[in-house]
Structure formats: structure tokens, C-alpha cells
């Protein structure tokens, strides 16, 4: 019981602090903008731990954060193997192939308005479909190993990147294109010096959406069959054995990997589109 009271008291104190801090002038500073949500996250963890211990929730329903942490430390090699199998092999290779293919397709259809008018509605339509559903088919075609997961990821990331790239290539203004024409720029010069740089914010928007899709595709595809390693495999078997601390450990890894992947793309975006208003003045 004392755990519960402690957790609730901690929660009240932290929330009170956050209310106070967020009304101060210095809350706009960078450090505080990180500290306040950080404290909120810690509060959630303390509340979770306190409720699990205080109400003695069995581990097969909700393991405490401390138990999950212990499990993460204990099974680092397993988690690393799963991470390498699912994220590095499955998701990353699929992401590179899918985004590359979408980018090249967008460049190819760039010169044909006819194809663009045809492919864009289809691409938009497909982007809204539950594409993860093709996972069982691709697992059947490419086998249980990471190749089939990469294939699922390729299909999942292709359309969002394609649609965004095509939209981006249309983003430069008439006046800018005319200026290129007055300089006698060829199609390729216009593409590389004006339209591709102008398209970058859009392309990176698609690439960022695709990071999450890539992880989802790689993990869910493993639910349909996988070798005995991989995050999706580990999650589904650990759920079957009711060792939920392992499931949460994998979810923690997935969350970290997802944020890191997204962060990496965002960092590259910042370096490439430093000129864009949304990036200027943010250091």
C-alpha cells in the first residue's frame, strides 16, 4: 500500500512542479523544454511501478518497469540479435531499396504528365490501404528469413515516398523555372540545380513517414513466419509463454530504434535543407 501512496504523492508533486514551471518565463528555454516532458515521463514510470507493486498486479498482466529493466539487462545478446535481424537486415535494407525505387520512379515519370496523372491517384489510394496484409504472401514467396521482411518494407515505404517526391518536384515556382530557362539550362541541369533541392523538404517528409512504416512492416511480417530470431518472432513467442517482461523489453527496443531512426533522418534533413524556413534559426 505504501508503494501506491508514494507513487501518487510523487505524481502530485511532479505535476505541481510542472504546472509551476510551465508558467515561468524560463520554461521557453531549451533545457526546460526537455526537462518538463522528461519529468512527466519519469512520473509515468514511477506511477506504473507504484501501482504494480502497491496493488500486487501479477507479472503476467503488467510487469513493473524495474522487472522490464532487469530483463533488458539480462538478455542484451538476445535483444541485440533480434535488433540486427529485424531492424538492420529487414527494415533498413527494405527502407533503402523502397525509398530508392520510389525516388527513381518519381524522376522517371517526371517528364510525363500523363503518367503522373495516372500514377498519383493510384499511389494515394494505395498509400491508404492496409498494406501490411501482403506480409503473408511475401513470406510465402521470399521465405522466412529477412528477405521477405525487406520485401514487405519495400512495398510499404514505396508509395508515401513516391507521392511526396512527385509533389516535391512540382514545388519550385514558375518564376524560378523560367529563370533557369533564360540561363539556357538543360532539363537535367534544371532538375539537379533547382527542382531537386526545392523538392527536398517534401522528400524528407516522405522519408520520415516511411521510417515508422518500415519498422511496423518488418515486425508485423514476422508474425506470419520467421526464423527463430527477430523482434516480431520474440514478441509473439514471449506472449505465448506469458513472459511479458520480454515483450516489454522488445517494445522498449522497438521504441528506441524507431525514435533513433526517425532522429537520424531528421538530422540528415537538417543538414540537407538548411536553407528552408522551417530549419532556419533553430540551432
Amino acid at each position, binding site marked *: 500500500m505504501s508503494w501506491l501512496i508514494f507513487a501518487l504523492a510523487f505524481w502530485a508533486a511532479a505535476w505541481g512542479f510542472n504546472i509551476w514551471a510551465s*508558467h515561468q518565463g524560463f520554461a521557453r528555454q531549451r533545457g526546460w523544454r526537455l526537462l518538463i516532458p522528461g519529468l512527466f515521463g519519469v512520473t509515468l514510470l514511477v506511477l506504473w511501478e507504484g501501482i504494480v507493486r502497491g496493488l500486487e498486479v501479477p507479472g503476467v498482466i503488467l510487469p513493473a518497469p524495474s522487472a522490464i529493466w532487469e530483463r533488458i539487462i539480462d538478455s542484451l545478446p538476445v535483444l541485440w540479435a533480434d535488433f540486427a535481424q529485424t531492424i538492420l537486415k529487414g527494415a533498413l535494407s527494405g527502407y533503402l531499396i523502397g525509398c530508392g525505387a520510389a525516388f527513381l520512379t518519381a524522376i522517371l515519370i517526371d517528364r510525363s504528365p500523363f503518367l503522373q496523372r*495516372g500514377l*498519383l*491517384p493510384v499511389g494515394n489510394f494505395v498509400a491508404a490501404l492496409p498494406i501490411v*496484409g501482403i506480409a*503473408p504472401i511475401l513470406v510465402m514467396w521470399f521465405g522466412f528469413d529477412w528477405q521477405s521482411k525487406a520485401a514487405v518494407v519495400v512495398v510499404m515505404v514505396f508509395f508515401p515516398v513516391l507521392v511526396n517526391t512527385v509533389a516535391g518536384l512540382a514545388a519550385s515556382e514558375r518564376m524560378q523555372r523560367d529563370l533557369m530557362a533564360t540561363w539556357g539550362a538543360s532539363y537535367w541541369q534544371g532538375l539537379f540545380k533547382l527542382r531537386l533541392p526545392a523538392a527536398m523538404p517534401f522528400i524528407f517528409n516522405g522519408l520520415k513517414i516511411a521510417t515508422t512504416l518500415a519498422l511496423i512492416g518488418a515486425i508485423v511480417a514476422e508474425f506470419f513466419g520467421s526464423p527463430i530470431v527477430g523482434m516480431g518472432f520474440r514478441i509473439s513467442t514471449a*506472449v505465448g509463454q506469458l513472459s511479458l517482461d520480454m515483450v516489454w523489453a522488445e517494445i522498449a527496443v522497438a521504441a528506441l530504434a524507431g*525514435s533513433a531512426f526517425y532522429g537520424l533522418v531528421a538530422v540528415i534533413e537538417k543538414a540537407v535543407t538548411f536553407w528552408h524556413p522551417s530549419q532556419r534559426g533553430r540551432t
Partner: protein
Amino acid sequence: MRSVLPVLTVLLAILVIWYAAAVRLNSAWTYDQAARAEAEVTFGEVVKDAMVQERPVLPAPHQVAAGLWDGFAGQAITSKKSLVYHGWVTLSATMVGFLIGTLGGILLAVGIVHNKAMDLSVMPWAIASQTIPILAIAPMVIVVLASVGVTGLLPKAVISAYLSFFPVVVGMVKGLRSPDQMMLDQLRTYSASKGQTFWKLRLPASVPYLFTSLKVSVAASLVGAIVGELPAGASAGLGARLLSGSYYGQTIQIWSALFAAALLAAGLVMIVGMIERRTLVRMGMRT
């Protein structure tokens, strides 16, 4: 309307490629059979066989169409083979989850906009959560809820709600903040209360943003419901249909379930789009 011809061309191209791929992929089996029977097959026979195999590697489009037609119209809708039955199971979980997630998302967004502490503490997490493959928790939610006695529609709806929740939060916060300083100042000169500002300015201004995120989140809810049907134990729903098809190598069944899910998703997004258009026209935001 001028894009009808290009779209049809692209669709036709897809169909042609699909048929060609079906012949290419299914021919291996035919050649194998012929080699065992020590018979020669002509290319014409291979093509003919590729169109009618019972468990093809890639079913030809007309086989999938036949499977879909059989699933929708060929069975009593209560039958376990009927796609209407499975589709309904998935759709009901999707809708319940979508409603819960949307309402929750709107409430949280209202809280975030009106409470500075909540804005600074919760909003970064709501944004960060979009980079996380949340779908991975689906099997656990199903099993844990089943172990405390909650089965059937609700666990799937929980996953759907979770997936549709964050897009709505992020979109709604953006929408509720979209009125600019000038409009807010105008309401101040009318000496409008905080509640009046909310109902008369912020909420109406957020509607276009809400619909944009609703289109994303309805598709996400459907994915959530389908993935929620994958873990062991689910016997009904499009996800279960996909899984059993992949266990027994019934490729036509997988493709039919997949297309049924696609039709469902397209239908849901279209319905939301229609409501969006009507609402915005009535609100005078679009003609």
C-alpha cells in the same frame, strides 16, 4: 476528370504485369509436374494452366475476382466462408476503436491547448509516439486482455483506438491553434470568454485539420483491427482469414481477404472524405 484516361492506363498496365507475373511464377509448378510425368508441355499449355491452378504462387486477377465474388455473394452472410461476415467482424472493431480513439484524441487536444503544463509535458510524448512502431504491442494487448477475461471485439478495438489516437491529438492541437493572433484579438474586443472563444472560434477553425487526421486515423484503425486478429485464437475477421490462408497455403483466400480489406479501407476513407466535403461546404470553408 482529365485524369480518368491516365488512371485507367496505369490500372491496365498493372493488370497486364500481374497476368505476366502469374504465368511466370506459376509455370514452375507446371514444368515440375510435367517433368515428373515425363511429358512435354507447350508454352500455351503452361499459360492455360497458370490461370486455373488451385494453389497458385500468384493467383491470376480473375481468380482473385472470383474469390472475392464468391466471398461476398456466393455464401450466406453468416457463413464462416463469407467475406461479408469476416469483414463485419473487422469493421465493427475498427469503428468502435476509431470512435474511442477520436473522442479521446479530441479531449486530450483540448486539454493540451488550454493547459500550459499539459502542453509542455504531454505534447512532446504525443509527437515522439508517432515514430514508434506501436503495432508491436498488438499481440500482447490481445493476450493480456484475454487473461483478465476480456475477449472478442474490445481488445481489437483497444488497438484500433490506440493507433487512431495520436494522429487525432497532433492534428487537433494544430487545428485548435490555427486561429491567428488577429482573430483571437478580435474575440477579445468582443470580450468573449474562454469558453466562447473555444466554441465559436477555435473549434470551428480546427474542423479541416480534424478531418485530415481522421482520414489517416481511420485507415490506421483498420490496420490495427486486422493486426489484432493475427495472434492465436482469433477465428473471425479479415486478419484471421489472412493468417489461416497463409497456414494452409490458400493463396486465393489470402488475396481475396487482402482485397476485401483494401475495399474496406478505401470505403472508410471515402466516407470520411464525403462527410468532410459536406461539412466544410456547410460551414462555408469550401465551395
